[in-house]
């Protein structure tokens, strides 16, 4: 799988470069992710809890990687650290040219806005906003102009096949539709890295396959690296590579 994955990655990046040329201003490509001696602890009532213990990780640019493991293995924490949702306590993480260690809160926000797109298990859509508005919000946060926002949001709704549902609020969408909106939102600012936390965790098989199809196309069509945390063997099997976390360490799957 490693060789096939590598070959696939190169192909993805090449296609991605070509596709970015037709975008609305993005010039960057998918990024590689590298973590070294990553250790993370939480303070609990019973004392410090080590969730990640000297984790070394490498994800190539344009790769689609699945991280699996039992509950509490540290998958979500690893994703949070790579995504800049949490500050690095010990060790280093490099995403492209960005070293996330020691970044300020504003710098992390800038990193999340410019480099990362998140997909959450429970979608993370704002229920007061329509599908269109949820996508537009990510563009508004990035300071995009209204016209560009409208064009990009509609383009993404088309891409996930939900143009007809643009005016619906999350409560009026099915689980699969919500996750597709969430993926569209994650892609709004042309991220170079998409992080998905159990993206199919709340979906039935049909919706799972549809979302999975979308995720698989991201490296090629949207020029981004994809790291997903999953319990779903179908998703893990569809990835270029599977990494397993156990007891806070990466082990062979």
């Amino acid at each position, binding site marked *: 799988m490693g060789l096939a994955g590598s070959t696939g990655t190169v192909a993805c990046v090449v296609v991605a470069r070509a596709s970015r040329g037709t975008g609305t201003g993005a010039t960057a490509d998918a990024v590689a992710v590298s973590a070294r001696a990553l250790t993370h602890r939480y303070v609990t009532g019973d004392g410090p809890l080590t969730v990640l213990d000297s984790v070394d990780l490498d994800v190539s640019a344009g790769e689609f990687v699945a991280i699996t493991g039992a509950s509490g293995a540290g998958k*979500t924490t690893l*994703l*949070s650290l790579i*995504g*800049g*949702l*949490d500050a690095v306590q010990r060790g280093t993480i490099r995403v492209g040219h960005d070293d996330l260690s020691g970044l300020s*809160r*504003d710098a*992390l*926000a*800038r990193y*999340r*806005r*410019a480099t990362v797109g*998140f997909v*959450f*298990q*429970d979608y*993370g*859509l*704002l*229920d*007061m*906003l329509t599908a269109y508005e949820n996508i537009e*919000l*990510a563009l*508004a*946060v*990035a*300071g995009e102009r209204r016209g560009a926002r409208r064009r990009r949001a509609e383009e993404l709704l088309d891409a996930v096949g939900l143009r007809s549902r643009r005016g619906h609020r999350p409560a009026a969408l099915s689980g699969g539709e919500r996750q597709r909106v969430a993926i569209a*939102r994650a892609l*709004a*600012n042309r991220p170079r890295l998409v992080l998905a*936390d159990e993206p199919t965790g709340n979906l039935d098989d049909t919706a799972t396959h549809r979302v999975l199809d979308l995720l698989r196309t991201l490296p090629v069509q949207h020029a981004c690296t994809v790291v997903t945390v999953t319990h779903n063997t179908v998703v893990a099997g569809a990835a270029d590579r599977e990494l397993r976390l156990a007891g806070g360490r990466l082990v062979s799957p």
Partner: protein
Amino acid sequence: MSWRDAIVFAARGVRRRIGRAVLTVAAIALASALLSSLLIAGGVARSRVLDDVSKGGPLAGIRVDAAQPVVGELQDGSGEDIHGAPKTIDNAAIANISKLAEVKSVLSVMVQPVLVIPPQPAVVATAPAKVKRPVAVSKPLPYQDGLVGADLTKASELPVTPIAGRLPQPDSMTEVAVTDGYLRELGLHDNQAKLVVGTELEYGSAREIRSLGAQSARGRWVRAEIVGVVAQDVDSHESVLAPIAAVRAARAWTINGDNPAELGTPQSPYAALFVVADSLDAVPRVRQRITTAGYANSAPETLIANVQRYVHVVEIVLGGIGLIGLIIAALGISNAMLAAVRERRREIGVMKAIGARDRDVRRVFLLEASFLGALGGAVGTFLGWGIARTLAAVVNNFLQSQGLAGVGVNLPLRVFAIGVFGAAALALVAGTIPAVRAARLPARQAMGDR
């Protein structure tokens, strides 16, 4: 995130929790209503008291009498008249006083002795059925009085306040207003002022004619409609107010006869002047200059200044009470927003996950707080205005029953600004802690509680 996007997003946040927003706005509105109604009431009380002290004229008004000042007796500002020997006020005197420093305007007053014949039959015949108090039943007799004339185009500078009807048209020769002295001549109470409005009276000025050793008098009679009743005398002893042209004509009739002084016509063309100084502070200096010019004068500037001070203290106390209410409401905003932050942890996390900075989140929450505050402030200010108007209606009923001028209630821009911007500012302060707390929430909240 731009300000515009933050405003739109904050508005959506408010709309989503409309029930809580309504309750928060209602709390602010009630507190703001309390504050604004107290401030309006304080303002009305201030103007009413000052009106009373200044007799409806400008606060910086000075009355100049056709008399010399008493040496060493410049009034102490209590408004008490101290007159010296009579002295003529003519157009030259008016011109001189007008040129004095810090004099804003000069209004002349003319008084002519006349015989007043009240309406016949008595007013009782026209009394509306709803008036239950006893009204005059005997025929009122003609009486001697003074007809006061002033330039009514500058009525706002005169110490007169209509309590019923209106002032005469400035150029009318057949319209007059009367004072409570006229009501008493008719045996009417002050609260029956409306009864005389629309009735007619006659006034006559006399001319003495001597021919072939015989002495006779002829009268010049004018039938005039009473168009209003004023609360205060423009001249303390007179009861009929007319445009100055009508009084000038009456005076011309008398002084063109023989020996007009015998008929009580004053030698001075003008009985008094109302001088308005540039400001209340300038009144003592202007009075000194008028005294130096040789005219007795009086003004209640010390009394007005004292009243202003006392009323200001009352306004501060009332404003303080309202402010306490507003602060309590602001605490309500703070509480509601803290609850909102707790409920929206995930949403805040998601916003941060898609790149929102701490200040973007803080801005959204501060905008929500100030929006709720400003809306509550605006609603409350108008509510307070309504409350003040309702109270004013009750007070006016009482004042009219006492034969006094009512109070007018308007919404001063200052009160509106305090109500809206004050509430918004307080809400902003109240929303600061929740907003900062929201901004400091870690972005990992996007992952939920896992």
